[in-house]
């Protein structure tokens, strides 16, 4: 075995297959509307040409995959202390990663790679979140050997050379949190209703638009005809509406379930030298490192169902190092239980965050929210009805439903809107259904803004915004005297200590 990796070498020959599937996945992603049309128009198409076309596409992809495989080489350049990857067919890319910048080398397997029996190796460096180098298909012994080489060379300049490498190897095999498929299913049926719904709408519209364009048939037109027929019979309309709603809800649920399982399958969290190493994903495995000192905002959220099932979601916002392009990286950990949450929080904060003094918003916050979400739409609807009385009458009965629904949502939003201030933690609680707690440490504050509208001066309420490198935390319409007192305290703490925010 070439254990020095100083000569440019290719991936495992079976890697062609990985490249093939990977290329195919990319093209399928880009061309799915066209594929959908083909499926729809299957009967009308000239079969021999279709199969010929498909065969041609497959051969083309195979050639591209083979060239990608041929042109992909990697080696260790000992003279410049670099790890070099060459890739590309027409546009050749050469990626050189300085060995002493390498922070992390991960060996993973996605589903495709598992079936074929090869491994992927990712190289992460300091100062960015995406992986800099990726080798898609090598055998396990080579992967382990290469990883050892990379880390060995990268830690040559550091202290504790051998200890750290052996530690990594031994620690890596024992993830301390594993999120089971059952937890993911629980998450799938209890979360992201709005996100899945909008995704469904988006899917539906792009699909129908593409079908329209290419078939000349209007999906909506046919529906409208049906609707007008039903319009005569109000009862039938309501039944159709209810059935539609229920089936839509079920579809949303299913999509969400599939999406979450695909995304977070086999979620593993490993401790490594004080950092957390996450890996997850069904088709392509993602790897992320969380360094506690880089974490800015930690969010813990769950809703009523999730509370009953003992699951919750953690969102971690890290600081992106120095660059002005604000690509805030949010890391999701879905489906932990309370014990696992405490373990993660302990690792991030060295203690479990406590809720201290509670600040509540003034009732005007609720009033203003009701004005925006109920008052304004009602005024708008009033004018709409004036000019389109027929349409207005038809949907009149929806108004009380809307008012009650939005009113209840806003009430709970107001009731859950809290700021908790403790010596070491500031926690903002918010949300109507999904109640989230955003936790920051006062030392992570970059700047503080206080804001007061002039007609709030006499009532003594105002808004506080805490700016961190991972985003802002704002608390609106709280007692302004208390807010100012805490601002002075935080400023004092920040200015008298040289605590590191990153």
């Amino acid at each position, binding site marked *: 075995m070439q254990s020095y990796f100083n000569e440019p070498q290719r991936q495992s020959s079976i890697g062609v297959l990985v490249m093939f599937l990977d290329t195919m996945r990319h093209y399928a992603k880009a061309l799915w509307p066209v594929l959908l049309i083909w499926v729809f128009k299957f009967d009308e198409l000239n079969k021999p040409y279709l199969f010929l076309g498909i065969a041609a596409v497959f051969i083309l992809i195979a050639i591209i995959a083979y060239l990608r495989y041929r042109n992909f080489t990697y080696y260790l350049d000992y003279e410049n202390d670099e790890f070099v990857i060459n890739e590309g067919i027409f546009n050749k890319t050469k990626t050189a990663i300085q060995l002493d910048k390498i922070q992390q080398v991960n060996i993973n397997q996605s589903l495709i790679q598992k079936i074929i029996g090869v491994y992927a190796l990712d190289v992460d460096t300091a100062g960015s979140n995406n992986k800099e180098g990726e080798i898609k298909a090598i055998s396990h012994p080579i992967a382990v050997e290469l990883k050892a080489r990379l880390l060995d060379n990268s830690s040559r300049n550091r202290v504790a050379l051998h200890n750290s490498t052996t530690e990594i190897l031994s620690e890596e095999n024992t993830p301390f949190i594993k999120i089971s498929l059952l937890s993911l299913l629980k998450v799938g049926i209890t979360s992201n209703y709005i996100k899945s719904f909008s995704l469904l709408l988006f899917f539906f519209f792009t699909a129908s638009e593409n079908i329209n364009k290419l078939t000349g048939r209007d999906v909506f037109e046919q529906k409208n005809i049906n609707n007008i027929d039903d319009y005569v019979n109000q009862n039938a309309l309501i039944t159709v509406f209810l059935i539609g709603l229920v089936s839509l809800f079920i579809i949303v649920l299913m999509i969400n379930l599939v999406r979450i399982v695909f995304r977070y399958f086999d979620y593993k969290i490993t401790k490594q030298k004080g950092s957390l190493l996450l890996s997850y994903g069904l088709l392509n495995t993602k790897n992320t490192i969380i360094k506690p000192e880089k974490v800015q905002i930690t969010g813990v959220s769950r809703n009523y169902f999730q509370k009953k099932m003992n699951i919750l979601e953690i969102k971690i916002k890290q*600081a992106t190092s*120095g660059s002005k392009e604000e690509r805030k990286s949010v890391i999701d950990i879905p489906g932990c239980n309370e014990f696992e949450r405490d373990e993660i929080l302990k690792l991030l904060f060295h203690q479990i965050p406590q809720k201290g003094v509670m600040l509540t918003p003034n009732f005007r916050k609720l009033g203003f929210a009701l004005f925006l979400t109920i008052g304004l739409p009602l005024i708008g609807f009033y004018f709409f009805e004036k000019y389109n009385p027929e349409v207005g009458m038809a949907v009149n009965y929806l108004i009380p439903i809307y008012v009650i629904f939005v009113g209840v949502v806003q009430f709970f939003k107001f009731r859950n809107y809290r700021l908790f201030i403790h010596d070491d933690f500031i926690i903002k609680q918010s949300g109507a259904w999904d109640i989230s707690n955003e936790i920051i440490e006062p030392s992570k504050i*970059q*700047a503080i803004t206080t804001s007061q509208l002039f007609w709030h001066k006499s009532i003594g309420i105002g808004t506080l915004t805490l*700016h961190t*490198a991972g985003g*802002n935390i704002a608390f609106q319409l709280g007692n302004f005297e208390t807010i100012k007192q805490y*601002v002075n*305290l935080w400023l004092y703490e920040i200015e008298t200590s040289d605590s590191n925010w990153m």
Partner: protein
Amino acid sequence: MACHLAGFKKLPMENFTNDTIDTTQLPKFEQVPMSGLHRSYWKVILINIAILLIVFCAVYVFTFAYIEELDQYHTETAVGLAILMFLITVFSRIGYKKKGFAFREHDVLFRHGVIATNTMVIPYNRIQHVALHEGLIPRLFGLVKIEIFTAGGHSSDIEIPGIEKMQAQNIKQLLMGKIQKEL
């Protein structure tokens, strides 16, 4: 227990205190006197408004010259435009009056806003870098804008316009010195 403690590095006991902080005795950011922007900066704002007015008038003249159906709305549009310009001037005046800044020993304060009063505070040890920006019109009056950046992104940067160039350079020197010291 005693031998356990002996293992620790001895703290200089006489210098170490850990009293409870009386938060009411802390320096209050809300009571810091703010210095306003340079008087010439109001002229800069007026020139900007004048340029805006010229643009509006040009659009006004051209649209009415080419679209004849609009002829009946001549006066209404003119009055609307006048009211709009008046409001812009009034709000700019309020905004100009309200803008203020202060450099304390450990942080910089910036106050701004029209209907709200916003006060932003950045501690010196959170400043990433400082830049001076010279606009075309402010340069005629020898004014520059100081930009103070933190790692918190655009929302947590301070931009103080209307500072005399010499003073701005002094401020920049001061800030750079503070940053160096804090590091």
